[in-house]
């Protein structure tokens, strides 16, 4: 059984020689076993609560990370789509059929095979 050191002090009172001896006794104020248990449970609960708040707070970052990753994937997809669109616009078939190509003046070829 655990006692509080402060409350146990009363038991250490002594009398000096020649001094009128008057019996005094401070009534012990001790926490009983139930109180101790309750205090410990409350402390454990507080610790648990603290742990849960911290873990929840940390895990909330999971959502933030997930959201950022989705945003990154979305931007990457946009980038890929734009790269494909750009490559298609620059494709030989597209360039050949462009108004700019149609407006060009043909050069004289070296010859052709009949």
């Amino acid at each position, binding site marked *: 059984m655990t006692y509080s050191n402060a409350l146990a002090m009363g038991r250490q009172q002594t009398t000096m020689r020649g001094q009128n001896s008057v019996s005094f006794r401070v009534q012990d104020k001790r926490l009983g076993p*139930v109180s101790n248990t309750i205090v410990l449970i409350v402390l454990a609960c507080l610790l648990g609560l603290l742990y849960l708040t911290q873990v929840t707070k940390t895990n909330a970052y999971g959502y933030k990370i997930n959201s950022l990753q989705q945003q990154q994937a979305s931007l990457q*997809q946009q980038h*890929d789509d734009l*790269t494909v669109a750009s*490559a298609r616009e620059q494709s*030989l*078939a597209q360039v050949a059929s462009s108004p700019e190509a149609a407006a060009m003046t043909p050069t004289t070829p070296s*010859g052709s095979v009949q």
Partner: protein
Amino acid sequence: MNPQPVPTVDPVQRVRVWYALLIVLFGIFALRLFYLQVIRHDYYKKAALSDQLKQYSIPAERGTISAQLGDSTVPIVLNQKLYTLYADPTVVKKPATVAAKLQPIIGGNVDDIKDQLSTKGTRYVVLQKKLTAAQSKRILSFKFPGVGTLEQDYRTYPQGNLASQLLGFVNANDKGEYGVEQALNHELAGTAGQLKAVTDINGVPLAASSDNVSTAPVNGSNVDLTINIGMQAQLERIINDENKTLKAKSINALIMDPYTGAIKAMANTPSYDPANYSQVSSADVFTNGTTSNAIEPGSIVKLLTTAAAINQGAIGPDSTFYDPGSWTIDGATIRDASADGDTSGTQSIGSTLNLSLNTGATWMLMQMGGGQINAKARNAWYDYMTKHFRLGLQTGIEQGYEAAGYVPSPQDNGAGINLTYANTSFGQGITATPVQMAAAIASILNGGTYYQPYLVQKVTTADGQTTVHQPKVLERNVVSPQTSQDMVNLMEYVIQQHIKEGFGYLNFGGKYNLGGKTGTAQIALPSGGYDPTHFNGTYAGWIGGDKPQYLVMIYTDKPQVLGNAGTSAGQLIFGNIAHMLVNDFEVTPKSH
């Protein structure tokens, strides 16, 4: 009357009872928790993790493929995320309404979509494939029950069908098939990453879990090809245009730098759309004929025979001989198939190549044996074919399904080996692919170095490390520099003679040098013997100034032409290619 004393319960005693009960209760809890958390720890941890721990594979992005465009590169194979639209007909409500809303976005017929949405006995129907992200988003905004989209990675080809056989495709299992995609599948594919994480009910990984394992994917390497995109497009246009009249079963053509082995263009017809590879009627169209079509090349092999005989000292470039018009070997008669009629009489090495004399090529082989086809001639010629010109061996070019071809053993098998070897001297009885022939002929034009043909110019890994391909020498001293110069001159002579004979399209007014050799090859039948009515037309040619700049190799499979297929089909295509190269690709003129 004294009242009976009421029995009292000592309050301390009562507290003690409750206290004892509490202790017992806590004791039971403690024991139970000890049992669950300590003794059954592993079991429950495993059970919890099986529910909470999710394992995701993070796919690596496949590398892109680019081609040369001037001093820069242009992508010809890219990746794109597209969406498959699916529906669960058992959940879809009001199919007619849903179909009417979907049709303007996905196209097709409203009734067909409605029928699909009303399909009985299935919970999964695919309504459309390859939808864009915008289309997918629009469809999902309707929030139709039982209708969803599935994201999928696709290879996309901005240049359409261009170089399709050379590129290959990626199959449904993300594996490269044919072409560069197959040959470099490992480099292009990369390595998938992995995420093992404890997740919440929404599947979002919990950041605080110590059980999380995350391995980032390593994306595939990007590949730059040696292919010049403009030259490739023009080569494809030429063979497609010409085949409208030639009506060949297929045409394979390539343009190579004879001084490095770099392939500048490599084309086949018929072709296919790699983005819709599953819609082809025959898988034959997937193969790149320039690297896998090993056939009897015909008379273009006479270039190799001539080079071997000159290099061995058996003949000289100016040698002459009496052509009897035919040779009898192992009881069989070898004749010329020349369109110029009887060629008997005195012939030169130049006329042997110009008139494509089988008797002349046979005579050269005889000279390698001291005047007759014997073991010495066979062994010497076999040595040149396999060790100098590397026939019968894969070149190692970065293509799937490259063929090795076939060279018969020189050992006397008791079944007319001398006749077989006489046939090989003019390109029958052996098989070789266009790229094998191109690499071999390049080695006799560039001074005698056999460069490995290659398609990959540069590989850049995901972390930016670049490897630039350097030309790889597989054989040195294939022929001497003098023999090489003799062969350049002899091939020029053939072109000059053809110009005189009326093939004016080979005339560039003396500004450039051209060399060439036709081949009209008999086609072996699976049942034995040769097809009496059809021939393959082949051609080996080059164009340049003071030295060969571009080497061209052409195989045409059964062109529907009259006369000599090598001339009517092969040389015709070469002429077009030569003009294309002069017009658009800066062929260096002669210095004098």
